[in-house]
């Protein structure tokens, strides 16, 4: 395999940011490519499986501050029933979507 072919086949490793542009390109020519197909779309190079909040991830306020979350950290605060939970956006941004259940209500926290 030539070097050029090698580079072409590994473009996503060399320039991963171009993966963000491709869906827009696809949208501009839907008759040629069609809409992105979830799960089977080979362009979804960074696809991540659904992340659910683990009970071990839920800290008390004291533990959260000890863990290094500053009081100025921006959070999304949710209160459902008697359950109250704060989701630091810095944490949500890792997967950009987290699944959780509060007081028997299933929610998705997104960024």
């Amino acid at each position, binding site marked *: 395999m030539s070097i050029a072919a090698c580079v072409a086949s590994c473009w996503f490793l060399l320039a991963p940011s171009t993966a963000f542009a491709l869906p827009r390109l696809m949208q501009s020519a839907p008759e040629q490519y069609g809409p992105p197909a979830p799960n089977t779309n080979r362009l979804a190079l960074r696809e991540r499986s659904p992340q659910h*909040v683990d009970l071990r991830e839920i800290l008390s*306020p004291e533990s959260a501050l000890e863990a290094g979350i500053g009081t100025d950290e921006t959070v999304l605060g949710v209160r459902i029933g008697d359950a109250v939970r704060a989701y630091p956006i810095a944490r949500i941004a890792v997967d950009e979507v987290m699944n959780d259940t509060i007081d028997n209500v299933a929610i998705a926290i997104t960024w």
Partner: protein
Amino acid sequence: MKCQSAVVYERKIGEQLFSFGNLGFVVDRAMAMYDAETGSSWNQATGIAMTGTHAGTQLVVVPASTTSLGAWLASYPNSGVIAPSSELTWRQKVRIWDPAVADSLLLVVQIGPLSRAYPLSRFPESGLLHDTLGDEPIALLFGRRPKVLAAYSRRVGAEVIELDARPVTEDIELLERGGRRRWSAVSGRSRPLRSARPLRKLACLPIDRAGLELNYRGIDLFGGPLPPAPGDGERATATTPAAPVPPAAPLPPDPAPPPPSAPQGGESDDDRSR
């Protein structure tokens, strides 16, 4: 570049429960996500399914407070906090309160099928903006110190009130204009607790201008159309055909204030049901 939208959705439609994952790319400046159950793809900024068996379906927004951890814990000292991640978080830069970009951000408020976008640059110095959306008198808060971004109904029982904002320690107090009632901006609860009905929070989400124009075409803009952004002559404007917006949870009647003898700190009405 994503559009700064932080949104909480209910992930159940009818009897169908969804588990969402990140598809790994951005569409119209919004994360493309998928549900593991049906494989439908969804737009994160609108909550609308783009492809799959649920194409066109919209998720319901759960009212949430965008604020600082300190302010949140001051209102809810027993709140759980999701642990930080050890992964690199180069993408998580929150710029809602960054003066350099605040002029390009808007707050979208949704009440049922109605929605309106409020440029943060059009908020008064106090950070509190009054408006009426449909029949609903509303107040929007873009508080800087402490950080609070939220929207409320100004209907308290049968009354429609006007509010003033006053920063206090780790919160912003909302005061009834010409009255004596006051509320926490973070929680919407009365101060002192249970001295009045809570303010109902409304579904809202921050979004940048480019994200708005791509995902909320035709949305009503508070204060009229925005001036052209630098180098933005050909971008779609608010005059383009309207796109559907995700439904917000309908407003139920005001919760009745609890009896004075009820113990403090245990209000059962939650943000979602307001």
